[in-house]
């Protein structure tokens, strides 16, 4: 049985965990001091050797990403932290920043020093005012304590850190759209190459990393490689935050070594809500193909989830029981992608519109079996033919739900509408509120 391993969340139950005093009581800012005493390249090498992979969805090795930044090029370098957290189901970075914003600030100091950046940015989604407050206060307190600004820790390293609020656009989580947004444009993805490591923010070498990736760095510096590598699996090292939501007895954040299974998390947390059974779930947000009860023992690491036909993504475990209509779920997610399509390329802009139309009809019982083929055909013409990965995410719930629940789509037609009672799936179904 895999055990939980709270690292990032270890102090969240303390009243002042978000203050600089609360953070320092647990050794906060020691890792930054250690790192600033190392050669920058040695810091990059250490993160490479640790095996830390990006926690924003794609799992790219963090140290390698840092290593791509050209050195000695006499250009400004930038670190941009992706705190846009908008992938449906994903809810790990916001509680982390509410409870412990300083661990991100410390990670930013270390990462910026390693890649020789003197200005870093946090791009925070705009719809979370209290998270903004906590981060802003943490940054101001870090400046006042000499952890940011000029000549940090007397080591000759200068770093400015700017907090930037988005304004409600899922696409700005895509790293190149994020950079355009941060430069003051509409947030639309850029053609790659050039990659951000060569031409990122203001066309300068830039690292874009997820909040959790950067926040994991101080613990690695403090505790060493062996400690980190003792957790996780062969190619997916370390600990990570799994976010359990939906029809479970006890939803929440579970920090565990990579490779834990949903069955284990459910056993630890109290299982599916009483009297109900697991029907389908997402391993890593709505853009990752859904799983069913047959996937309860899939190791939730990058390789394990891929091998089973989905993606680890953001580790957003959204759980739905037998009261949930899968067509309704697919339709609602499709409406999300349609709303969030940035409009830059035709297959996605027009295609997501058509997906919603067809799913509406299917949900209303007005579809036919031939429409299911048409729907899949449409998906084929969107995925892989669009400019960015938003479109691939848009078809994931549809293709995967058709794979496992084809007959449920047809049942809508036979029934002349949705056969489910939406009240039964609410969490106040029995309470009569």
């Amino acid at each position: 049985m895999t055990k939980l391993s709270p690292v990032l969340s270890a102090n969240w139950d303390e009243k002042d965990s978000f203050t600089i005093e609360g953070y320092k009581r647990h050794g906060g800012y020691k890792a930054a001091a250690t790192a600033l005493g190392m050669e920058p390249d040695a810091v990059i090498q250490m993160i490479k050797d640790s095996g830390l992979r990006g926690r924003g969805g794609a799992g790219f090795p963090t140290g390698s990403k840092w290593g791509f930044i050209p050195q000695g090029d006499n250009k400004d370098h930038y670190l941009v932290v992706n705190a846009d957290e908008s992938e449906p189901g994903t809810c790990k970075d916001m509680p982390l920043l509410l409870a412990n914003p300083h661990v991100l600030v410390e990670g930013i100091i270390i990462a910026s020093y390693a890649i020789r950046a003197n200005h870093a940015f946090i791009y925070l989604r705009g719809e979370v005012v209290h998270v903004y407050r906590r981060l802003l206060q943490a940054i101001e307190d870090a400046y006042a304590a000499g952890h940011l600004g000029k000549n940090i820790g007397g080591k000759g390293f200068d770093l400015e850190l700017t907090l930037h609020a988005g304004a409600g656009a899922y696409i700005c989580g895509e790293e190149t759209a994020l950079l355009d947004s941060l430069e003051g444009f509409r947030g639309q993805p850029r053609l790659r190459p050039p990659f951000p490591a060569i031409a990122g923010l203001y066309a300068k070498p830039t690292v874009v990393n997820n909040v959790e990736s950067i926040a994991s760095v101080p613990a690695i510096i403090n505790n060493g490689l062996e400690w980190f590598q003792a957790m996780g699996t062969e190619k997916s090292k370390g600990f990570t935050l799994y976010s359990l939501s939906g029809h479970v007895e006890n939803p929440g954040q579970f920090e565990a070594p990579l490779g834990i299974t949903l069955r284990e998390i459910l056993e630890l947390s109290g299982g599916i809500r009483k009297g109900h059974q697991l029907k389908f779930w997402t391993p890593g947000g709505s853009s990752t193909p859904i799983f069913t009860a047959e996937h309860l023992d899939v190791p939730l690491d990058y390789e394990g989830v891929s091998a089973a036909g989905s993606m680890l993504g953001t580790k957003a475990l959204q759980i739905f029981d037998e009261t949930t209509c899968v067509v309704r779920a697919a339709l609602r997610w499709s409406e999300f992608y349609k709303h969030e399509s940035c409009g830059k390329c035709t297959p996605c802009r027009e295609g997501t519109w058509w997906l919603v139309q067809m799913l509406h009809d299917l949900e209303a019982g007005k579809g036919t079996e031939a429409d299911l083929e048409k729907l899949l055909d449409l998906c084929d013409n969107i995925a892989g033919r669009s400019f960015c990965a938003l479109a691939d995410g848009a078809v994931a719930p549809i293709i995967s739900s058709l794979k496992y629940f084809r007959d449920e789509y047809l049942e809508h037609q036979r029934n002349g509408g949705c056969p489910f009672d939406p009240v039964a799936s609410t969490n106040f179904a029995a309470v009569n509120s």
Partner: protein
Amino acid sequence: MSDKDFISFSQEQIATMDKIIARYPRSRSAIMPLLHYVQSLDGYVTPRGIEKIAEKLELATAEVTAVSTFYTQYLTKPAGDYHVGVCVNTLCAVMGGDAIYESVSEHLGIGNHEVTKDGKVSLERIECNAACDYAPVVMVNWEFYDNQTPRSVNDLVDAARAGNPPAPTRGPNKLRTWRENSAVLAGLNDGLANEGISAGEASLRGLKIAKDKK
């Protein structure tokens, strides 16, 4: 409300804009916080706000408008003092968000992106707000109201209209107005960061289990 209702920006407000611009290596990057700031002053993105931002950043007004209209948080008409966002993305919708939206919409007699006649409450169907472990989620002025029901949200808006909204679940001790919170998003520290809890019950679930097992 027309643009004539607004007198020109004060010297102090213009100085604040200059400070916002100074945070960035290139001035154009300040467009988003400046739009949040305009919303904090005017209640939405006003024509005079667009013009001022364009002047400050040496852009055409059309360029500023193009950016402003791309992002859903920038409004083209005034929000209520209490802007209520009901999450209707799949997980919240299924857990009760759809029922909450229907109920509060009927209760207030307004639909998506509409404002009550007294200007107090506006309503919006919102996407996943990164709080799914607290579903169904409602955001008021972009503060978290966790684990809601149709009844709790109807009570919430009634109390808000009476000038006495309940405190957010994970937020400051007292709910601020939509304009006040827009100023925070422009980067103006309101000094409330230390209010409220570190983490809600769901955020602590794994930690608690790990400690109990020890």
